[in-house]
């Protein structure tokens, strides 16, 4: 699994530019499903046929936050906008890379007061000596991702884009383990989550499932002077109650809690005060779909050093497998 985490997190795919990561995931998932298709927004929708059960949508988003070039100045510096929630304090000094392999570093205009740290004061330096030289390597509209390799700490791993490639890992592992299932499984590796749950919205509309479960990272309150939150890494799968995008279907939530307890899967209940997930979009599809979330607790979300505990990842996989093999008759 560590290898898959490394492969997925190091893949390239800022929101709207998921071609590269989609192919990486497609290759891993294809052996375990009956059908794979891609829709107009680039969602990778994998179908595993069941036998007279429900239509179950499993969702993880494959896009990541990043940058997009808006202007190349005469000296070859690249001005950029953010794709998704990029925090300036964290962005400064980071290395970024583009899909064609070109790398650069984020520099800043002279700033006297840290309050003035804003993305509009930043630029990417790809080592070009002039506009022309820069234009040979990149162009306006090219998207970039943060450049970081995944690090194995033993039980825990650090990587960029753990949000939400770790969710993608969970679903791939679930499909690997699910030999036969009663339910029709639609595994959606969604695009454009970081810019407003956009991929999931249309994927769910197309699939129109009976139940939707999203897999995404959630914050924790287990670091020094952290926000008040009763989720820690290493304490199991987080079964979401609420975030800004949805209040999870109470029946489904309790059903997952019961499954976890019956199967001895470590879990914690999660209330995330700010931030949303694809389940919010899934729930609001058409006349409404019961939706829930199994979250992977993660520290330092939206930084290039997102940390997860692999025991939690395993708990999420176990819980999802148990759910797929259960009647889901909440």
């Amino acid at each position, binding site marked *: 699994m560590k290898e898959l985490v490394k492969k997925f997190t190091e893949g390239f795919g800022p929101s709207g530019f998921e071609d590269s990561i989609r192919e990486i995931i497609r290759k891993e998932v294809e052996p375990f499903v009956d059908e794979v298709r891609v829709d107009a927004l680039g969602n990778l929708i994998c179908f595993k046929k069941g036998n007279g059960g429900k239509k179950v949508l499993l969702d993880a988003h494959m896009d990541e936050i990043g940058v997009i070039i808006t202007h190349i100045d005469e000296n070859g510096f690249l001005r950029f906008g953010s794709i998704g929630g990029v925090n300036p304090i964290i962005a400064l000094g980071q290395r970024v890379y583009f899909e064609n392999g070109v790398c650069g570093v984020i520099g800043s205009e002279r700033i006297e007061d840290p309050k003035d740290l804003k993305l509009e004061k930043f630029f990417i330096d790809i080592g070009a000596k002039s506009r022309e030289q820069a234009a040979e390597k990149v162009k306006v509209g090219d998207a970039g991702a943060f450049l970081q390799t995944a690090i194995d700490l033993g039980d825990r791993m650090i990587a960029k884009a753990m949000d939400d490639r770790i969710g993608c890992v969970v679903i791939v592992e679930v499909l690997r383990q699910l030999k036969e299932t009663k339910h029709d499984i639609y595994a959606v590796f969604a695009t454009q989550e970081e810019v407003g749950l956009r991929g999931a919205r249309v994927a769910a509309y197309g699939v129109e499932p009976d139940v939707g479960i999203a897999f995404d990272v959630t914050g924790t309150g287990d670091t020094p002077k952290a926000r008040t939150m*009763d989720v820690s890494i290493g304490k199991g799968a987080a079964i979401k109650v609420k975030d800004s995008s949805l209040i999870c279907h109470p029946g489904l939530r309790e059903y997952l809690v019961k499954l976890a307890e019956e199967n001895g899967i470590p879990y914690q209940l999660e209330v995330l005060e700010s931030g949303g997930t694809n389940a919010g979009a899934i729930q609001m599809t058409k006349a409404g779909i019961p939706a829930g979330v199994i979250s992977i607790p993660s520290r330092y979300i939206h930084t290039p050093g997102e940390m997860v505990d692999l025991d939690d990842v395993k708990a999420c996989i176990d819980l999802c497998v148990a759910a797929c093999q259960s009647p889901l008759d909440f």
Partner: protein
Amino acid sequence: MDIKQFLKDASMAHGVSGFEFADIAKIVQERMSGLVDEIRTDALGNIIGVRYGDTTDPLRPKVMLAGHMDEIGLMVTKIEEGGFLRFTQVGGVDPRILPGHEVIVYGKKPLTGIIGVKPPHLTSREEAARAHKMSDLFIDVGMPEEMVRDLVRVGDVVTFKRQVSELTSDVLAGKSFDDRAGVAVMLVCLEELKRYKVAADVYAVATTQEEVGLRGAMVSTYGIIPDIGIAIDVCHAETPGVPDWKTSSMGKGPALTQGANIHPKVYQGLERAAKELGIPVQPDVAPAATGTDAWAMQVARCGVATGLVSIPERYMHTSVETLSISDVEKAGRLIARFISSVDACFVKELKKWT
């Protein structure tokens, strides 16, 4: 129908957004069932009562009413050492009104709690100068930590504990009249419809999750596909310190909204119905978003012609929301009258804009 009794029961029932099924939904379902031909709930917990039209025409127009039954509230985010509960809000709760409040924590069983705060003696001058933030506050249920951990989980919801006060025989103060008053209006309307011959099918929807983003209305409208959607909600009544032009008056009839969210012909129809019944109405203008279910209903599917009828209410989003029963009764009667005027011809006219 005893409007006052329903308002009291509904106000004191609990049903924080997303958790309506626990209590308020049962009350609404019970009261509505005698007034409709059919009743169902959907995936988001909306209660949908259908009163079929009195004609055999297979192409009867569909009128949807939406009054939201959810209420704002709190949710436990963490159980602290000592058994104190940290919490977040569900919907727009003003943290300034919280200290000293009695609450009910819906754990394994309902627990009475109070919202505690540092005493003034132990508060620095700088701290005292600013209002409490929600993150400074906590709920104390008075039990030892182990007992709290046994009874309360992260994600449990919390409501204000509040008896309805009958300020006068017509004026009530209590929690959650936003928008249980709207639900009451729907019930009055359904009752009233018994007196009319109605061409349209009426879908009375007690919606869920309005306070967290009009979510119930959005999906129920998609499912129903109405021709006309009327939201019933509360609006601000006169309050010291708030200019007249921002408020309506309590006890002087329902407010009818105009603006981009409202189809002009639905507005005119409501106004006409009021005139026919001699019911006073008050103008309300919303240039863009009304912040009500009407905003979600309007853009469902291919679009819905919407109207908005509001009950003037003081102290919205506090536990002493104050309103006049007479406004609720008038709103119900006027909507019933309007519905009785809706036929295929009226619906056709809604798409003629020139």
